[in-house]
């Protein structure tokens, strides 16, 4: 522990001293971004290790490191630097999604399909409907919506309901990997997270169309958003299948420099999917599912990604932490806490309903809902879409939602870890590194 604390101190001291150099910005983007990335990797890892001593998940430490170094708190990473790290962050996300897909074994899912479907449906419908109603009722007390008509409150409530459904597959897979969880609970959580990732995009598109009808004069139901969404999802799945086939072919036939190949693949998906309007996470998840379930290369794929998984997680969650808009949390703290508590209650209720219907063999049904709280990229992406819309309340609502997502992102992993521990599916030695074994074997 002393090693880690003192090293963290040295790194921060180095960073602070060097930042005092007056002409550093003249070194161009390369110096600043590389320095920030290094700080994020080392600082995030060390803080994650220290946090794990408190039995908290390491990714909370990574998020915390990002927040502390980020533009809202420490200021060591400026807004521009965080933006510059986006591409590296997206590459990391693609690899995380690929590994999430790779972990989804259809034969296991087939055994748990009842649980996955019932929990996904009960959460999607329940959280969406009840969340909309709860928001519409409570918004009478919100300063920026107090005097608005019911239609506006319902319109904003629909957005809240839709975004409340979203769950972060990246956090889910990172936590499963960290706690090395295995079992019914883990399978259902991962399956639900991936399924809800698709459901929430559909739900949000429907929501925006209804909102247009409610809020904008002369608006009518247009099929265009649904056709383009359908096309986007279909092409993402087809691209995922094709790339999955390509990965399996490469790993089985060529197998030269697979790390390089996967990095190039992730880069191509990260950059390419945006330019042709496809969903990179869905492509990678489908590709991973294809490789694991239709070929014999699944283990190899997971092992290649696994070798660099720590670097990937640290970069992804630190950048996510740095990108968190803590100013939004500060300005809307009371409302954000209220809405986060409402979301928690709804998730507890609907997860309980889903479990009651499917009756999966779960050891701790009372704490299981905690596994569905974390939110990250997809939710923030949807908020960005909301900002682009012409609703007058869009900006205020977006700030409030960002604050809620920040709370879910901070506390979600902690509660998720508790849920996994309560289910008894984590490895007993999850907090101890396996390094001694590895070190012994390499020695």
């Amino acid at each position: 522990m002393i090693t880690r604390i003192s090293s963290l101190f040295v790194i921060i001291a180095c960073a602070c001293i060097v930042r005092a150099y007056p002409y550093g910005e003249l070194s161009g983007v390369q110096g600043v971004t590389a320095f920030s990335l290094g700080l994020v990797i080392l600082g995030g890892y060390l803080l994650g290790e220290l946090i794990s001593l408190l039995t908290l998940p390491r990714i909370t430490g990574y998020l915390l490191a990002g927040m502390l170094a980020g533009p809202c708190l420490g200021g060591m990473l400026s807004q521009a630097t965080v933006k510059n790290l986006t591409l590296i962050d997206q590459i990391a996300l693609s690899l995380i999604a690929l590994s999430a897909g790779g972990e989804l074994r259809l034969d296991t899912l087939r055994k748990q399909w009842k649980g996955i479907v019932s929990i996904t449906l009960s959460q999607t419908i329940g959280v969406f409907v009840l969340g909309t109603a709860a928001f519409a009722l409570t918004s009478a007390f919100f300063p920026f919506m107090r005097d608005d008509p019911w239609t506006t409150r319902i319109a904003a409530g629909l957005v809240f309901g839709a975004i409340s459904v979203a769950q972060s597959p990246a956090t889910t897979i990172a936590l499963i990997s960290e706690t090395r969880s295995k079992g019914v609970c883990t399978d259902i959580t991962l399956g639900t997270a991936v399924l809800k990732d698709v459901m929430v995009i559909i739900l949000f598109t429907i929501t925006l169309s209804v909102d247009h009808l409610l809020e904008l004069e002369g608006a009518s139901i247009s099929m265009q958003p649904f056709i383009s969404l359908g096309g986007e999802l279909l092409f993402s799945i087809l691209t995922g299948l094709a790339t999955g086939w390509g990965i399996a072919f490469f790993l089985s036939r060529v197998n030269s420099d697979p790390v390089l190949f996967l990095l190039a693949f992730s880069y191509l998906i990260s950059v390419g999917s945006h330019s042709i309007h496809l969903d990179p996470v869905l492509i990678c998840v489908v590709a991973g599912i294809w490789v694991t379930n239709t070929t014999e290369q699944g283990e190899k794929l997971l092992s290649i990604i696994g070798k660099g998984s720590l670097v990937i997680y640290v970069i992804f969650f630190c950048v996510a932490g740095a990108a968190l808009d803590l100013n939004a949390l500060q300005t809307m703290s009371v409302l954000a806490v209220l809405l986060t508590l409402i979301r928690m209650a709804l998730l507890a209720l609907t997860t309980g309903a889903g479990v009651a219907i499917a009756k999966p063999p779960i050891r701790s049904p009372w704490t299981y809902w905690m596994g569905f709280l974390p939110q990250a990229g997809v939710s923030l992406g949807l908020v960005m879409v909301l900002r682009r819309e012409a609703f007058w309340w869009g900006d205020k609502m977006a700030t409030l939602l960002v604050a809620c997502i920040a709370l879910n992102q901070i506390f979600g992993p902690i509660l998720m870890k508790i849920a996994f521990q309560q289910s008894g599916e984590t490895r007993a030695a999850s907090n101890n590194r396996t390094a001694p074994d590895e070190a012994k074997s390499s020695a």
Partner: protein
Amino acid sequence: MNVVLGFVLIVLLGYAGSRLTLFQQRFSLGVRYLFTAGTEFLLVGLILGPRAANLLTDAALHDLSPVLSLGLGWIGLLVGVQFDRRILKQIALRIWTLAFVVSLTSFALLALFVYFFLPLCFRWSGDLGLMGIAELENDSAARLGAACLLGWAGSVSTYSAMALIQRDSPLRGKASKLLQLLTDLRAPLAVLGMGAWYALFHASTEAMTLARMHNEIDTRASVTTLVDPVMSGTGWLLVSVLLGVSLGWLLHYLTSERLSGNEMLLLVAGSVIFSGGLSSYLQLSPLFVNLVMGLMIANLPNFALGRITKSLLTAEKPFFVIFMILVGALWPPITPAVLMMAAAYVIARAAALIAGTWLGRAGWPHGEKPAPWLGLAMLPSGGLSIALAVDYHLIRPGYLANFLLGTIILSVLINQLIGPFLMERVLRASGAKTPEEKKRAGGDGRPAPQGAPA
């Protein structure tokens, strides 16, 4: 559309690469070396970059720029960790002397040549670019920087051509071993030399460099008033060394516990990129700082040294390839001045290496003197020369940096084409033989038994 085209291009490149591998025996040694030494990725980068397919867009290059720091740091650290004093002690003094003399002589001759030829090159080629000839002739610091870079980049070579030669005909002999040692020993001198130059002539003490960074060449006076030197050049040199020592100690300290492979990779990659970023931020050389870091790690008692080196080597290829692709994408246009300088530089480098070897062998006992033409076997150059050019490009960006990067890339490619052929000839002339040739030469004259290979 661009992405789809890019993807098709990658598939085609992959296909072409595999065909090339299949038929590579039909190509000459130089061409094969060009396509197997890692420099082929420069061409891939050029094709993928903004000047061709634009799959690696300017924005993507901007976002991926930390990878350049990582690549430079990785190369520096790898050179550094090889210098374990326990191993170095076993090398004979005369080999050390030869390496130093070759390195310093070739550097001095090349630097002198470049210092005087550079303005002439611009004048004769008529390629003035953004920099006027008068400006260049008056700016001795810029000329000195260019001379130092081309001097040190020319003083290093790569041994990887030997692997290709050995694959065709496994030549064994003292010369091949000597060549490997000379290559290894000269590498840190170039990095340290160039790193010292960046510190002693630090960008913050040079108004012109800062002006050039902002394309404000005509406002020298106003920029000068803006810039207060933070510290002297010696101070900066001390900072470079201290940075390397402290970060080396930090990595040593962090890896002194038992760690998993994943953690080791994270700590090594994180430290390299952190130190590379810090040094770039301070306008110091990431190569230099990481080399010092490597020297520290290699010479502090650390049971994990082997695992650090293993981590470095495991991830070396992906990082090196990505580094080369990015450099290829950054490859500046080939102007007449670059062509002229590259051609002259290749010839001058060959002459300088021969002169260095000739001088260095003076102290050797008569019977063991290396061949006078051993310098020609040192022609193949590669990753380190390019890394030195990228280092300059990052610390002192501008027209001159582009010109120097273009010159070095072109000269590396030319040297890779002709180098392996000359290396093989020199080794044979020095008495290196394949085991079969040795067998034949040492045979008793009786005919080989039936069925024995010819």
